[in-house]
């Protein structure tokens, strides 16, 4: 069989491709803004895949930041390595204010517990820009515990009366809920079996199904079952009461200074000029005032805070020191 490119393949390819392209351009092109010039773009690197909690929050922020700056703001997902891939990526990026990392509590826990893995000390690799949002975790109880237990004191009393029995769910090793359970156990001397899940939602379901006693969860993960009456939320883990749930007591009202909070902060690669950092800090502070943003995420317990560059630096530093203290005192079964 003799083959000639022009007679056999070209018309065929053309037809196939025309069909694909027509379909693509008509359906997609019409609903999408045209791709802008790639210059003068600010990139926010989110260390999780598209569609996660942090990702959704940051996309809503990015949209408003874009209006504020008058530049295009893109969210780029660099998932993996318990956020270390994204940290490594941003820490080695250009210091011209074109790229920022959205940091999470994993920044401190990764470094405090496993300093030998990963890119290194986040305090040296990154320049803090601004704290963006915080979210307390909730302490939840399920039907495996008697109904009359409705406070941290009562929970601790039960655990003392039933030594070695208390199980608590969390969302994986080195995540803040897991460490919060270890911290609770360390501070009270009560043994707690921490049971890890790939996501807090699955953990909350096991608590609601009565297979595990209790858990420390992101509030949004536990909310459906709380509303359905399958779970009770008895406290939040932040130092002060959350303005979103003003009636909910804090763990620190029972155990002094107990503070584990989920937070997102914006960081730049180390060495970014002060002027750039200050400009971004001011723009973000303005964006975080936006009432529509607050309304959008209020039900999840997300509180947009803003603040100074030092606020974020202090938060990161005190968290790292806190976990290092826990690591020094407790054999966490992590190594």
């Amino acid at each position: 069989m003799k083959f000639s490119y022009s007679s056999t393949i070209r018309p065929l390819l053309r037809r196939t491709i025309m069909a694909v392209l027509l379909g693509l351009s008509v359906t997609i092109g019409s609903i999408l803004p045209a791709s802008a010039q790639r210059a003068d773009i600010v990139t926010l690197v989110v260390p999780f895949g598209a569609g996660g909690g942090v990702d959704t929050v940051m996309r809503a922020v990015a949209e408003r930041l874009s209006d504020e700056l008058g530049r295009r703001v893109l969210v780029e997902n660099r998932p993996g390595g318990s956020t270390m891939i994204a940290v490594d990526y941003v820490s080695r990026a250009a210091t011209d204010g074109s790229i920022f990392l959205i940091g999470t509590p994993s920044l401190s826990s990764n470094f405090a517990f496993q300093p030998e893995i990963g890119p290194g000390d986040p305090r040296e690799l990154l320049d803090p820009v601004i704290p963006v949002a915080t979210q307390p975790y909730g302490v939840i109880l399920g039907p495996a515990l008697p109904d009359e237990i409705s406070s941290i004191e009562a929970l601790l009393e039960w655990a003392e009366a039933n030594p070695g029995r208390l199980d608590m769910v969390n969302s994986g090793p080195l995540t803040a809920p897991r460490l919060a359970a270890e911290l609770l156990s360390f501070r009270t001397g009560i043994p707690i079996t921490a049971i890890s899940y790939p996501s807090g939602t699955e953990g909350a379901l096991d608590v609601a199904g009565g297979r595990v006693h209790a858990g420390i969860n992101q509030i949004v993960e536990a909310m459906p079952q709380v509303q359905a009456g399958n779970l009770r939320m008895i406290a939040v883990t932040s130092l002060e009461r959350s303005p979103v749930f003003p009636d909910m007591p804090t763990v620190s009202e029972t155990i002094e200074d107990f503070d584990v909070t989920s937070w997102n902060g914006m960081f730049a690669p180390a060495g970014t000029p002060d002027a750039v950092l200050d400009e971004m800090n001011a723009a973000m502070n303005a964006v975080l005032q936006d009432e529509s943003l607050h309304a959008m995420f209020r039900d999840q317990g997300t509180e947009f805070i803003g603040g100074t560059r030092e606020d974020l630096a202090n938060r990161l530093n005190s968290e790292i020191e806190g976990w290092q203290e826990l690591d020094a005192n407790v054999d966490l079964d992590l190594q």
Partner: protein
Amino acid sequence: MYNRDYRDLIGGGLMALLGTAVVIYGLMTMSVGTLQRMGPGFFPISAGFILAASGSGIFIPALFRPGTLDAIEWRPLITITASLILFGLILPKFGLVPAIMMLVATATLGQHKISPISIIITSLFLSLMSYLIFYLGLGLTLTMARWPY
């Protein structure tokens, strides 16, 4: 036809070796733990052990029966692997279009059916398609071409 079944000798042997390596490296780096509190090594080391056993189970009977062995297509194995490696090396430095050209040229090395002109046309065509589908259509962040130096 060989007087031993070399295909299963090699296959079983490889599996037995792989299983043993998994067990040894696993024991060196991870704890096995107890049944209640299983360590990270429990599952993979058990799987490695079973793999080593099944590998031996494939290997031993093959010693005593004749068998055949498929010919290995060395040339495509090497050119295609190389083309993918080159793509991976070129993409981050020079962008998509040079990477595609290099991939097409390398992957078709030794194909007498394809002329240099078809290689160029194919690469350009694929570059255009990738630009339209991935960059414009799906809005993926891809650098088309750049000069890093």
